[in-house]
């Protein structure tokens, strides 16, 4: 009897080991096929030179010289140099980061109270409220942004409403301004802020807040000193989920932003499809990726440091 159970256990263990690797391998395969390999291709293109009227419109890095029987390898850094030379690209990056940063901050300021309200609502109501947060994403992203165009345009709903209230005489220029871009980004990415915040706030240990009161800490101070630190993981996760896609956002500034809003997403698009300078566009994309990766890596490092700190 004992022998039998032993055998079964061993088989289960073996199976679970095999399954484990299969389960891990699948996302790895997916990520490397659809993320890492394309990234390598982009990286490769960014070191090539642009050639007009050819397919593909760039030189290859490795060429074979049949006469000398030599393999030539040439990496061209001119694209990167061009980016740093031209202030319009730099401006484009900075503007994108600024818009993403402010949008993230706005999402946090709007999302935190909302997440808190959901987390402290009755459990019967909680799922319904979460549903309401997620539900807009069931409609196509593009359609929702078009809907905002309908709201914000001079003869749109918002202007009509404000005129009807006699607050304004002339329609306001809302569409094709930075304000419209902020509205669009905050609207589109708010759920990505609320959901991680909600999971963090639900887990807050209120006896820690009580301990703060007990030690003479006033409620407002307790909120910032004891409540918010317990939700750091949610704040960081939510901010990343908003900031990262917001930096490279293309559709929202394209549809809602003004002609002057040359954000990096738009700039890359233009380089690819208008001027057909693929290597420059690839270099722009690579730098954008670096800009996004650096804060993530720094964040993970500080977090790990925090955990190991003091364990001397």
């Amino acid at each position, binding site marked *: 009897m004992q022998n039998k159970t032993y055998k079964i256990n061993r088989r289960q263990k073996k199976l679970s080991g095999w399954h484990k690797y299969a389960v891990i391998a699948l996302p790895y395969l997916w990520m490397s096929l659809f993320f890492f390999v394309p990234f390598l291709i982009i990286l490769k293109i960014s070191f090539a030179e642009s050639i007009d009227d050819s397919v593909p419109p760039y030189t290859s890095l490795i060429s074979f010289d049949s006469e000398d029987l030599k393999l030539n390898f040439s990496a061209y850094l001119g694209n990167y140099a061009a980016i740093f030379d031209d202030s319009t690209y730099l401006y484009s990056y900075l503007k994108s980061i600024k818009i993403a940063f402010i949008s993230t901050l706005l999402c946090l300021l709007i999302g935190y109270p909302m997440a808190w309200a959901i987390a402290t609502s009755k459990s019967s109501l909680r799922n319904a409220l979460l549903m309401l947060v997620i539900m807009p994403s069931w409609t196509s992203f593009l359609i929702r942004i078009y809907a905002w165009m309908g709201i914000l345009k001079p003869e749109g709903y918002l202007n009509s409403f404000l005129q009807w209230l006699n607050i304004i005489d002339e329609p306001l220029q809302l569409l094709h301004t930075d304000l419209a871009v902020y509205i669009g980004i905050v609207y589109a990415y708010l759920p990505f802020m609320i959901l991680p915040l909600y999971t963090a706030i639900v887990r807050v*240990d209120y*006896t*820690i807040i*009580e*301990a*703060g*009161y*007990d*030690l*003479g*800490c*006033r*409620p407002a*101070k307790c909120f910032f000193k*004891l409540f918010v*630190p*317990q939700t*750091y993981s949610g704040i960081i996760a939510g901010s990343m989920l908003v900031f990262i896609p917001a930096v490279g956002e293309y559709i929202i500034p394209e549809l809602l932003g003004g002609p002057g809003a040359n954000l990096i997403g738009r700039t890359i698009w233009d380089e690819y499809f208008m001027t057909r300078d693929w290597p420059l566009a690839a270099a722009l994309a690579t730098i954008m990726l670096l800009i996004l990766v650096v804060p993530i890596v720094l964040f993970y490092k500080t977090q790990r440091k925090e955990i190991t*700190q*003091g*364990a*001397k």
Partner: protein
Amino acid sequence: MAELLKDNEKVTGSEKTAVNKNREPVKKVRRPLLEIKNITKKYGENVAVDNVDLTIYEGEIFALLGSSGCGKSTLLRMIAGFENPTSGSIILDGEDIIGVPPYKRHLNMMFQSYALFPHMTVAQNIAFGLKQEKLPKKVIEERVNQMLKLVHMEEYVNRKPHQLSGGQRQRVALARSLAKQPKLLLLDEPMGALDKKLREQMRLELVNIIESVGVTCIMVTHDQEEAMTMAERIAIMNRGEFIQVGSPRQIYENPNCCFAAEFIGSVNMFESTLVTSGPEVGSVIRCKDLEHDIHLDIDVDLDDGMEVTVAIRPEKIYLEKTSPVDENGQPLKDNYTTGVVTEIAYMGDISIYHVKLNSGKVVISTLPNVDRFNKGLPTWDDKVFLSWDPESCVTLTF
């Protein structure tokens, strides 16, 4: 009049030191620190705390003892200010603190799960309360070091709570709650998060620390052993009411009702009838389970024919194989009965005997194993005589 009072204090003062050697409750006339008057807390229709009165004296360790849901935690949270009573008043050091928010009360609490701030180091945790008072940096630093020393945690200043063991966390929590030098310290299940071995060790250490600081302390616990070893006075709570308030010894030796008797330790209860009582005859109580009457030397001062319950602790029932005799060698006329040993549980230090009486009732008796094996005491299926001293019996009316 004032002189008289002073004299009185002197006498009781000296009595304190004399009695204290025996670890008896201190009988000094102490200053009341906390007065709870007619406190009631209702949650809708449920009454969590029902019209409770309590006075806590300066410097004592007081335990609220009861099973879960008896209202002890609610009472503690009302003192701390986390709950508002439905009615009644709480007076701390002469000041009514009802309506005063917790952050303005001069008392501190050690929470059940310690509620240490996870993102702060040990030193930051202890300093937190002091920082709220806006004390100078140097004073805070000094006090933190003093507290670390008190709880022997100097080496762990820079650790975070998750890097500490359960016992270490408890020390930090204690240091944090003592750092502000509160008038009153509240302990919510102080040993709740520790394992059994550590619990026993920490009990006396905690008491030593509290006594060395001299802070008045109210603790909440469901563990009677913990209450008995740590507290000077205990209040047994049930359904929001106090059943009995007294020293551990008073409660154990002289429970005032069946609930108190059964709540602390184990006890044999005999439902009986009072036959007669008077100053000369003492009290004669008849129980249908016992072959002979219970005869007390004292007058219980109750009506004859009244239903009473007699409680006798297991260690106060003697087991013998021969018929019991008094100190003069004369056979006992009452205060004994016979039975058969049905079970013996070996507990290491003692053995617990289950003796079945003729009526079918099982009586529990404990004997030190030193006696059991040396003196050849009764074993399984032996017919035994059970006897007890009259003063071992406690007569209860409800």
